[in-house]
């Protein structure tokens, strides 16, 4: 039981209460289908890796380079995940829970770095500080690019959390710092751990930025196998090491003590908490946030501006209009974001509301795809598409499904965190009052978990906008997206011609970020200020 204070019992049911309820068949079946679809790339890996002789796998795996690649991967994941957790949680708390000046603007600014292609962040930093390569360069660039993965679910969780618990804790005389650790962070625990999981898995699969920063990990090695050896089977065999690392990370997180659900209590409408005044801390917090935005957004945007202004005229003609590329990108990404959020819903409901060993394994298995390099997932879909779904191959629905598969983990973490906060009791009351189960779920639970769904949409949308590897492989032949055009120009050293495409990618991400921000501010009462 994680709720420290105030528990009316009947309304907010926890832990064991959920076990007694039968798992609805539709929910279970949908979740199994979703999980199966997400495991396709892993199965493909196993099959393809089977084609490689043991000798050549051994030759690749058992050499000095492998040990240093493993060490590089592990030390980067550990430090970057920790930094992302600290930055993401602090920013979320300041923006969602305190009377910080300009909260709405900050809420948009801090998530935008998720929409900057890693390549641009890396290139921006390398131009500003050419010495910034290797380990610390990788830590810096990846932290700045990935902390939104922690921020978004944690912020959504703070938003839907019950302010009453903090208020009661304060009224009982606990100091603000104690309230923060004992109540606030604990309320966002599921979101925070989920975000950290996403960051560490994403680090396993990252390629573009590390290539720029000249930091070698297992994934850069896998790409090299593809690139210079045309050796897809060997690359797949090496990817199995990533799967193993992913399983270790997932298992490690799962072995942490289970705190159960922490749903809100008290009035059943979303009530905004009173905002804590930052007092004398206001200026340092504003400086910290400004620094964060300047580093994560300012440097790459400055780079793009520089390209636009100083790049001069590119000698290369464009192969598509900026508008057409923007529309295709927005359409595909929005569809993928909606699909991923929709698919995450049953899995999250099953994992939270019907806890069992198998629902936990099923849910965890859907996160594995995050640890796989994009090229591996895309080639698995190529195999699937050309062998079993030929009419769909290289059509828009296939690309949308590919994005939804690649970024499903982002959606799941965001949705799950808020499902964990929505009390089952409310839905049960609605049903006892005669609502049909599905209707009760749609009308009662859905609005409660809406912040999570919105965060999921936002995350998947931004990730899809900048996705390149799978896009190049699966986009309908002849169609150009912002990312493919950006790539076409940068691979020809035409940074000036590439810059507008990067600028529009960031601009596109402003739209969901603003929408999400507006939506929440609508549901919030004007902030009252409490003295700590």
């Amino acid at each position, binding site marked *: 039981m994680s709720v420290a204070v105030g528990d009316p019992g009947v309304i907010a049911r926890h832990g064991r209460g959920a076990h007694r309820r039968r798992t609805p068949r539709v929910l279970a079946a949908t979740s199994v289908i979703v999980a199966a679809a997400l495991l396709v790339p892993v199965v493909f890996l196993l099959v393809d890796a089977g084609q490689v002789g043991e000798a050549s796998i051994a030759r690749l795996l058992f050499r000095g380079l492998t040990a240093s690649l493993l060490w590089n991967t592990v030390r980067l994941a550990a430090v970057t995940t920790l930094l992302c957790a600290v930055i993401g949680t602090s920013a979320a708390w300041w923006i969602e829970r305190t009377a910080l000046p300009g909260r709405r603007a900050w809420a948009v600014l801090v998530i935008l770095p998720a929409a900057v292609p890693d390549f641009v962040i890396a290139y921006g930093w390398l131009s500003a500080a050419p010495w910034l390569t290797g380990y610390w360069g990788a830590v810096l660039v990846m932290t700045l690019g990935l902390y939104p993965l922690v921020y978004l679910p944690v912020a959504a969780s703070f938003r839907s959390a019950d302010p009453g618990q903090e208020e009661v804790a304060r009224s009982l005389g606990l100091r603000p710092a104690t309230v923060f650790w004992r109540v606030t962070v604990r309320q966002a625990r599921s979101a925070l751990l989920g975000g950290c999981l996403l960051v560490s898995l994403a680090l396993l699969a990252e390629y573009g930025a590390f290539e720029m920063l000249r930091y070698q990990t297992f994934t850069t090695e896998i790409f090299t196998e593809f690139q*210079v050896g045309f050796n897809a089977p060997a690359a797949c065999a090496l990817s199995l090491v990533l799967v193993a690392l992913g399983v270790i990370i997932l298992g490690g997180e799962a072995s942490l003590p289970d705190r159960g659900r922490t749903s809100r209590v008290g009035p059943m409408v979303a009530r905004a908490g009173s905002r804590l005044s930052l007092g004398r801390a206001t200026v340092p917090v504003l400086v910290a946030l400004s620094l964060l935005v300047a580093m994560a957004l300012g440097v790459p945007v400055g780079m793009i501006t520089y390209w636009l202004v100083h790049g001069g005229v590119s000698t290369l003609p464009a192969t598509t209009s900026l508008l057409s590329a923007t529309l295709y990108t927005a359409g595909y990404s929005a569809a993928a974001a909606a699909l991923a959020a929709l698919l995450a819903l049953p899995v999250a409901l099953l994992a939270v509301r019907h806890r069992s060993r198998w629902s936990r394994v099923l849910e965890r298995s859907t996160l594995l795809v995050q640890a796989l390099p994009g090229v591996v997932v895309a080639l698995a879909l190529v195999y699937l598409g050309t062998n079993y779904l030929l009419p769909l191959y290289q059509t828009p629905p296939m690309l949308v499904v590919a994005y939804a598969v690649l970024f499903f983990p982002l959606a799941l973490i965001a949705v799950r965190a808020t499902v964990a906060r929505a009390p089952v009791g409310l839905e049960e009351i609605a049903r006892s009052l005669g609502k049909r189960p599905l209707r009760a779920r749609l009308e009662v639970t859905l609005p409660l978990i809406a912040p999570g769904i919105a965060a999921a949409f936002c995350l998947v949308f931004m990730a899809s906008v900048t996705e390149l590897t799978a896009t190049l492989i699966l986009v309908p032949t002849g169609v150009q997206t912002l990312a493919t055009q950006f790539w076409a120009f940068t691979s020809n050293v035409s940074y000036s011609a590439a810059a507008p495409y990067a600028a529009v990618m960031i601009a596109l991400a402003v739209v969901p970020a603003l929408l999400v921000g507006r939506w929440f501010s609508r549901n919030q009462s004007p902030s009252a200020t409490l003295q700590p």
Partner: protein
Amino acid sequence: MQRRLRPLTASLALAASAALVSLVGCGGSNADPANTLVLYNGQHEQTANALIAAFEQKTGITVQVRSDDEDVLANQIVQEGANSPADLFYTENSPALAFLSSKGLLSSVTPSTLAEVPAQYDSPQGDWVGVSARVSVLVYNTNMLQASQLPTSITQLADPRWKGLIGIAPSETDFQPIVTSLDMSEGATATVHWLEALKTNAGDHTYPDNETLVAQVNSGAVAIGVINNYYWYRERAEIGASGMHSKIAFFAPRDPGYVVDVSGAAVLKSSHHQANAERFLAFLVSPQGQQIIANTDSFEYPLDPSIPAAGGQIPFASLQPNPISIAQLGTGATAVALLQQAQLI
């Protein structure tokens, strides 16, 4: 409750309609499939587009193009197998074509098309045709080095005096032909030693691609590197002659580091449009196609000896490279194994 449902409903509707628009409204053209070719393109997109535009105008055949790195495309074609939507494959280097050739995925090219370019630049099996060529050169920063200080052989770059001065891009596909060439001239053991020395000399200056390498030499981050000729010309076209603080230089004639590498194209066996696809290959090597390559900003050598390359480069015929054959370059598997042994990749 009702009030709060509205934004949710609205955004779900928005998302759903966005999904519909993208699913219904996007993708592909309405071209007649029988008269349409699909080209998987690993070459410079702009060069390919210029060639396609002229071909479409001349023949009335539509060509849809999918561009990606040649290695990804080659792996993709293998995965697609008999159901590949691709009719044609156009690459920057020969190993990608040799790889598909070794898998038996390419159709034989008509002898008259093969005859348009010197035989040594075509597939030894006759299943792809050479289209253009590039040559490996030294690039050096003119503020840091004089022409007289340059090595005459690539083997000299292993000398400790280049430590901290040289940059390399060993994972570039363009680097493999040099390794193969060195292996042919000096043998495997010497090549691995050379690679290891190169790795030590380069240290942190190991770059992901030749674009970065040429930019780093030009900016003075390193003094010297080995690239393919056209990267330097692309850099110059992009930043202007006034921004260039580097020059290119050739190794001594027939040095193992002096290598000509071929860009080529092929028709896939799985294509249902063999005749039209053949016409595209014939167009690539025709005087019109070769002239387009010479005119675009890719700065490669057309294989037609009568057409000079762009940018005022020395004529292709006067190059004196190490005479290694396309068959010797192969799929690059030996070079890759040596690079792995030296732990450069």
